[in-house]
């Protein structure tokens, strides 16, 4: 699970289907989908968004959505 990753951890997305349709579409636009390797860059305090990096670009997503993305640690 994404929720268990800390800043600096790397993972590979294995299931993104539980995330809301709109967020899924937008992540897909950014090239982030199942099979993408992501690295958690930083986690905002008080349940704030997290910043992830994939293929050299940084993207911010909310914690709520992040925990719905299934990630395999690598």
């Amino acid at each position: 699970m994404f929720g268990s990753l800390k800043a600096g951890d790397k993972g590979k997305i294995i299931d993104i289907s539980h995330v809301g349709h709109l967020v899924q579409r937008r992540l897909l636009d950014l090239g982030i989908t199942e099979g993408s390797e992501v690295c958690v860059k930083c986690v905002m305090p008080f349940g704030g968004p997290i910043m992830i990096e994939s293929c050299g670009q940084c993207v911010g997503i909310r914690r709520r959505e992040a925990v719905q993305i299934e990630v395999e640690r690598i």
Partner: protein
Amino acid sequence: MEIALIGNPNTGKTSLFNNLTGSYEYVGNWSGVTVEKKVGVFKNNIGHLIDLPGVYTLNPLSKDEGVVTSFFLNESVDRLLNILDASQLERNLHLTLQLLEFEKPALIGLNMIDVANKRGIHIDASKLSEVLGVPVVPVVARSGKGCDKLVDVIATKSIQPTKKNLVYYGKEVEEAITLLTAKISGKTNHSARFLAIQYFEGNDYVKDYVNSIADAEKLEAITANLELQLQKLYESKSLANFIYLKRKEVIESIVADVARKSNSDIPLSEKIDSIVTNRYVGMPIFLLLMYLMFMLTFDWLGTPLSDGLDALLTGPVTVGFEKVLTAINASEFIHALIINGLVAGVGGVLVFVPQIFILFFFISLLEDSGYMARVALVMDRIMESVGLNGKAFIPMMIGFGCNVPGIMAARTIETPRERLLTILLTPLMSCSARLPVYALFVGAFFAGNKAFVVLSLYVLGIVVALILAKIFSSTILKSETSLFVIELPPYRLPQFQSLWRSTWDKGKGFVRKAGTFIFAGSVFIWLLSYAGPNGLNVDMDHSYLAAIGNAIAPIFAPIGFSTWQASASLITGFLAKEAIISTMNIIYFVPNDASLQGLLADYYTPLAAYSFMVFILLYIPCLATVATIYKETTSKKWTAFSMIYAFAIAYVLSLIIYQGGRLLGFV
């Protein structure tokens, strides 16, 4: 020749636009939808370049992105200039493939090759051109390198649309495309294959368009059948996803062909990010930057410049005008009109040009450097708790400059509810036109802590907006859906040229307004104050203006300013907030701010002055803003609501401040 500039967000479109076009540009409206389009003329006059909002795909999520799709469907264009970010080639090519399916002459500007090289990505442009079948020109849009070559290629007459289909979507999809194409061919000038694929992808704009020329039910049947087939044969999740994956396959093979990777070093951007979006210091850094921005604008830099300009206007300029008027033997009426009306009215507003430009400069700096997106990220948690979205912070920041572009910037917010909420609340952000009013009043009453008092007003605007967001989102604008995914572009060192250009773009409106709106308004206000029921050149207290002001003045008695002067200036303030200053300058008969400040002390107590400023901050969006709200929401109801709630909030808060302050013993 009309050329459309299109590309992903943050690929350097604006830089390229500025480099390819001269200083001249105009802003028009798209047919049908009233959304601004920026059109520039090429430096060597080969045609017009149309700047489109950045999109990842032609299948839109937000209204901003919808502009691009409806442009493709409704407007004619001769050539497409697609700008690609070389360091993000895979993602960028998704859009390119869709553009090529549109079958218009296209060419590609391969931007940020320097960034890509630094990351260890080397792209063979000629090979890419060969694979895609369109010219590819490497450019560095920020420095202008390669732009001449790009213009040469654009000007070449022989660019032909590629006829080959780059993506083969598999037997089933291709068959369905043929079926759908047969239904619509001959009824449209657009590529039928493009329409078919976009239709299958679920593009609502294309769907509406296609349904208007063909039988919607039959098309629906083709799509449903195809979806079923794909599910059975390939267990595909959805048709759109299937198409996406097919494109991705093609892109992967293209990239493998044209790009070579080597070792890279860590970009500086990430090092900066580890500080500014740090979980502990991110917020304090943001507040510190805001503080610096305000101090520079209002104290350290802006005030001396404004004072200098003021001295120039009230000294040499006024004297010059008087000399000329005397020399040409102007009548007393003309003399009074020019000196007491125009110089006082327009000059009183122009004095604030330096401060406003400094503020716009900083906003441009925040936008250009890539920090704005980080602010949205840092602020999201707070915004989410009041039912908004971190992205709403960007329109609000822009709103500090001017509410009109701020409200328009809300288009990038994907969900309609959050967008509406942002539009309604952006006018509470204290725009630069309200600044002259504060500057005048803090100068007169709070000279010791100017920046602090002004800052308190800005903060008050934000706090009120957040509280109202919470109230609105849990009552009249309830909804569960919220979308927050934000791309954080790498930091870029802003270039002076583009900074100046965007500062000027934003600030020129203020100067233009002073020359037109405020100019005419000043004449009108002066006439109202010069004429009265008893004829011309009456005592100001017996003028028409005083009569109008007196009629509504009692409303404002409980909040501390029951003079007819205050009421009259509030009315003009609806036309433009800075008109409050011109009106006061005219009413109080003084040609410059310094003496006006002295006079104000006779009419206001410090407490009433603060109450007045709070009222100005909130009371009603100006006319231009109201018009923009109407354009953006296309709802009379919400437009009226935005005016009414603002007035109510302003009145209640001023009442609390004034009466509360009196109870506490302030005067």
